[in-house]
């Protein structure tokens, strides 16, 4: 039998006091862009949240997504949420191997059929019957279909699982596809990024813990609370863009002064993610803060869209997005995009509060 302690009980065991729990709830609500008025509801839901069974399948991937989530050093919000789930199968992290590992997966599936969460990182090769990636002699394709059949929902973590990522980049030698190309009858939430931001992964898990369902999604099945605004909308270098102050090379005066990296190929204006606000390495910074433009890693097909250092205004990156931007470099587009995305964010918030 699985342990049936609630999240609050488990936090108490770890020395988190009642005040600490309320603070955890306030931080979780803020992380998920919920109104502070929701904090009591978050507290009530997390107080009772049971431990969900999670099966994590890693296919054609680099383990960066798992590293992203597990490499925190302090008791972080994402760490505490990740610790709370019952991670019944993850062949990179679990101690068991071979038959024992596969037995653990079978057991978790049988005990929690129809209720477990399936997390997938990595794409799935289809060419030559999927022989290019196997686990315990089972192709990724067969394993995905088998485990997905009993899942309550699927979280595709990372750009490979969500959109195909690097394995699917031309010439795509293994015939790689994302999860959504194979599974059509289950709710799927995409958490793209190369790798994805840990707080976004745990935010989706927290939402499932609290409300028993997945958060509201955008047209690409990404959670709106985290992907509702572009990098450009929330970038601290945005004022330089608005004033037309750009770095032209990586070592010119503009670069040294921290001006906008748009002309150096920054894909922030067409990339939706929470990097500019959630940041990386436990809130230390994000690529633009380190002096490099956004490469658009949370958008579909980003490897094949063109040069990372080609400005969007050249119109060569991707197709429609680049051309549209080339036609309107200036503050007006940015402001309109910001207002639009904030409106979407507000709608998402309102819907969550109902």
């Amino acid at each position, binding site marked *: 039998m699985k342990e049936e302690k609630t999240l609050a009980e488990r936090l108490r065991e770890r020395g988190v*006091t009642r005040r600490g729990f309320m*603070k955890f709830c306030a931080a979780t609500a803020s992380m998920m862009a919920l109104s502070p008025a929701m904090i009591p509801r978050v507290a009530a839901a997390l107080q009772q949240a049971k431990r969900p069974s999670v099966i994590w399948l890693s296919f054609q991937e680099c383990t960066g997504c798992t590293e992203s989530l597990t490499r925190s050093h302090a008791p*972080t919000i994402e760490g505490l949420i990740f610790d709370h789930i019952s991670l019944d199968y993850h062949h990179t992290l679990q101690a068991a191997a071979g038959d024992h590992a596969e037995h653990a997966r079978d057991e978790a599936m049988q005990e929690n059929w129809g209720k477990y969460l399936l997390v997938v990182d990595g794409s799935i090769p289809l060419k030559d019957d999927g022989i290019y990636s196997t686990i315990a002699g089972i192709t990724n394709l067969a394993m995905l279909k088998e485990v997905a059949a009993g899942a309550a929902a699927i979280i595709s973590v990372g750009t490979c699982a969500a959109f195909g990522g690097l394995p699917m980049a031309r010439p795509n030698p293994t015939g790689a596809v994302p999860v959504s190309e194979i599974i059509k009858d289950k709710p799927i939430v995409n958490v793209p990024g190369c790798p994805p931001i840990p707080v976004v992964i745990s935010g989706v898990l927290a939402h499932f813990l609290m409300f028993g369902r997945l958060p509201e999604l955008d047209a690409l099945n990404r959670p709106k609370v985290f992907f509702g605004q572009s990098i450009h909308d929330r970038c*601290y270098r945005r004022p330089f863009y608005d004033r037309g102050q750009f770095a032209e090379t990586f070592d010119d005066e503009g670069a040294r002064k921290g001006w906008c990296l748009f002309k150096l190929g920054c894909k922030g204006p067409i990339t939706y993610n929470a990097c500019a606000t959630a940041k990386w390495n436990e809130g230390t910074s994000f690529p633009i803060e380190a002096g490099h433009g956004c490469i658009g890693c949370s958008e579909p097909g980003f490897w094949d869209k063109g040069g990372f250092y080609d400005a969007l205004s050249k119109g060569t990156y991707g197709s429609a997005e680049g051309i549209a931007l080339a036609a309107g470099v200036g503050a007006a587009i940015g402001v309109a995009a910001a207002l639009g995305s904030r409106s979407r964010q507000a709608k998402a918030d309102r819907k969550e509060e109902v």
Partner: protein
Amino acid sequence: MSELNSIPVRVEAGPENNHRTENLKPVLLQIENALRELIEHTTETVIDLAAMPFSDQDEHDLRELLGGGEVSATIDAFGPTLVEETAFPGVWLVEHQDAERRRLTLHLEIAPIPTLLVTPRDDLADGLAALKALNDSEAPTEDVQ
């Protein structure tokens, strides 16, 4: 760290480059309405400053305008929480930090006392039980002359 600090990349400083989002005034008006609600209907309000575009410069301006009040406190629970009353009674700045003192959230609470400062009711019961156990214990007490 000296190597990192020696990299000659600095965001330009100076008044004209200080980024303001235009959200300071709406926040101040929201505080005014919330304080009125508190007085008239005892409704408490929490404003999450992370939920809107709000720059470091905005925060600096906000702190300057609100000033400091009579009360400040630190709560040590799941990392420190810094509580400061502003010069406007009932308007509090509450900053939640993690164990490594990184900010988790910054809230404005408009309330007689911030929620986290109030002792949880279950903690009162636990405290009573612990105190009763102490008093019931047979530990020797020293005579005081």
